[in-house]
């Protein structure tokens, strides 16, 4: 095999170097946050976090913890760069996306540091692909400052309960209104489209409701166009936690089980839509 096709030996000084037996463990999670071309990658000893933002209103994070990788090492405290997520996904899935039983693409990832490209070495069935993707200065990321002490309302639902609702969201409605309350209707999703308004209620004692902690009645509206991409994460997940804080900021956390049964998380944060008046509520 030509020298250029060999991945570097582990002894070499790479700011980030990682190995993964099944590249799908990474690519499927990245697809769940792929609603913009660019992403910011942050690697720390705990693992990899890939962040995508839009309109300064929505942020999605995919977390692939170090334990998912067969090998994961970060030389400095943290390593951060911006990269084209579209290109990264095309490279990770270079051998195709269909999962034939027993076949998987092995991945080795290396990053020398600031200013260097991200190198990927992918192998399937004896065929090796080497990718060199240019990186850029990382973007300044939004900080939603969402910690557990600031949470006003929280519910955990089984994803199958929400999947149909999100897949069939009335896209002619500009907003998705979310009501959370200790009293009826407990948890309600509403849209206001061309055909009229639609409401979907989930009672607190529903089988799908795994946890219900609502302290205050809150009604907030979010732009449907911003939340629609979260449907991808919902489709992959088994459970979702929905939380709001006093300002109406929304946090959606998706628990995703990969092919090997390991757990990963994807989260979406969204700002409330400012354009609502008291009269409309």
């Amino acid at each position, binding site marked *: 095999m030509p020298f250029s096709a060999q991945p570097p030996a582990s002894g070499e000084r790479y700011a980030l170097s990682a190995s993964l037996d099944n590249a799908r463990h990474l690519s499927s999670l990245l697809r769940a946050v792929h609603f913009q071309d660019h992403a910011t990658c942050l690697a720390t000893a705990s693992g990899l976090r890939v962040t995508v933002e839009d309109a300064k209103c929505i942020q999605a994070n995919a977390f692939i913890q170090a334990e998912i990788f067969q090998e994961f090492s970060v030389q400095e405290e943290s390593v951060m760069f911006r990269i084209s997520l579209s*290109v990264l996904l095309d*490279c990770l899935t270079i051998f195709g996306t269909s999962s034939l039983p027993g076949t998987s693409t092995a991945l080795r990832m290396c990053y020398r540091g600031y200013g260097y490209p991200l190198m990927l070495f992918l192998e399937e069935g004896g065929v090796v*692909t080497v990718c*060199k993707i240019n990186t850029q200065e990382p973007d300044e990321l939004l900080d939603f400052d969402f910690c557990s002490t600031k949470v006003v309302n929280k519910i955990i639902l089984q994803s199958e309960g929400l999947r149909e609702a999100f897949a069939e969201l009335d896209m002619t409605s500009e907003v998705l209104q979310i009501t959370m309350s200790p009293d009826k209707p407990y948890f309600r999703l509403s849209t206001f489209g061309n055909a009229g308004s639609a409401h979907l209620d989930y009672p607190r004692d529903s089988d799908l409701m795994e946890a219900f902690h609502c302290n205050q009645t809150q009604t907030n509206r979010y732009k449907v166009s911003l939340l629609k991409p979260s449907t991808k994460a919902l489709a992959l997940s088994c459970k979702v936690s929905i939380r709001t804080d006093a300002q109406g900021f929304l946090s959606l956390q998706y628990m995703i089980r990969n092919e090997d049964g390991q757990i990963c998380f994807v989260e979406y944060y969204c700002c409330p839509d400012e354009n609502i008046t008291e009269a409309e509520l």
Partner: protein
Amino acid sequence: MRFRAKIVDLACLNHFSRIINTIAKLAKTCILRLTVCKLYFILSDKVANGGASMWCELSQPSLSSSSRIVTHDIPVGVIPRRMWNDFREPGVPDFDVSIYLPVLKTMKSVVERMKNLSNFIVIEANLSGEMNLKIETDLVSVTTHFKDLGNPPWASEDGCQSSAQGRDLESMAEARIDIKKLQQLLAGQQVNPTKALCNIVHKRIVHFILLHEEVSLQYFIPAIA
């Protein structure tokens, strides 16, 4: 009426449709040449099609059998005999490297992804059974390495040395081609060919030969500077 044929057997009909589908992916119109024992589909669009040309040959026995009647009238432009010389079977070019193609399914996936990243692809291969597919842009470069592909033995017809003989086994011959043309060729292959190979004339042309039971398809893609 100068020509009439009937295909009846369902298997033959399916076979014929598959061939037409493959060719349809490569060209909107083509030349159909009919002889006593063979059918040829020819495309030789020198400039308009980016210079790619195709030659597909079917032997008659695979089409004949016996019975259903469906009539379609398809408008044709008859080519006058004096122009028939323009449509002769292409000769095999004096290539630098001849190599068997990798598993088409893998090659197809790789080329499809590379098509998202670049308009051009470099195919390079040597006489040690190694082939590389490469794309390079400002943003990204991707190289896929295939090995142990095998090089077909070509007997020299007239005893002369071809460019391929006496060549350093490790040395790569390459051509940079329009990736869409390659993707179209691969996308059209629904069934795995019996033999699939390509001949590379360094920096000039890539000549693909795909052989199925009764059909041979040759596709020429010129190199772009």
